[in-house]
């Protein structure tokens, strides 16, 4: 299977999230449910990408990346804010990696952070934050 820059970006994000002290489980686009023993958890999704030519031989891609965080906590709203701050701090550090943002020379910028929070309370009080990012990277034409 061909290694793509997009996959390297997702792998770098998963590694970044796994390095956040409070996160127990970090995964690439997991759709099977988390149970409370796996939380705080984080999953990376890449729902959309837009590309345009960068000269005759290359393409720039704006990859929409979504980091979804889950906590099971009596103070879920407080916990999810704190966890989001930890993830933002890790992204801030990764943005300044001397090898390139996320440690990848193909990555140009990490931009447009947006946060959406949802909480539900049933047997457990679950808090979730969706952190949306736009990651711009460059490849050869028709590569991703």
């Amino acid at each position, binding site marked *: 299977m061909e290694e793509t820059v997009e996959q390297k970006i997702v792998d770098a994000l998963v590694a970044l999230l796994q390095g956040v002290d409070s996160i127990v489980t970090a995964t690439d*686009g*997991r*759709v*099977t*449910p*988390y*149970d*409370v023993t796996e*939380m705080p958890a984080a*999953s990376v*999704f890449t*729902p959309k990408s837009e590309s345009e030519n960068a000269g005759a031989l290359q393409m720039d891609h704006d990859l929409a990346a*979504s980091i*979804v965080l*889950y906590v*099971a906590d*009596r103070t879920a709203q407080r916990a999810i804010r704190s966890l989001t701050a930890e993830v933002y701090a890790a992204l801030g550090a990764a943005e300044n990696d001397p090898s390139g943002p996320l440690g990848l020379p193909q990555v140009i910028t990490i931009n447009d952070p947006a946060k*959406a929070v*949802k909480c*539900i*309370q*049933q*047997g*457990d*009080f*679950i808090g*979730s934050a*969706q952190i949306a990012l736009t990651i711009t990277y460059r490849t050869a034409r028709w590569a991703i």
Partner: protein
Amino acid sequence: MDFAADSRLFLADSPHRAVVGFESVPVLYDAPFRQAEVHEGQVETSAPACTMADSDVAALVVIHGTRLSILKGDALVGDFEVIGKEPDDMGLTRLILTKDP
């Protein structure tokens, strides 16, 4: 038996009891599995609840935020907080619970 006249009959053979403070009353307890979709992913949880006689709800002053323990026989099932009250207007109230760790 006149169930309509005395809803407590539904609770008579229940193995579960709710303890509120120092008082204990019979309840019907269950905690079915729930899978919740949140953003792009899913999480597993449960939906614990117990059904209590209206007269016990009133006597024990069970309101939103009341903390109670559920016992099965002498064994502790768990500690909970009441987050919902659903009276059936027939003498029983279903109390929606969340875990109280």
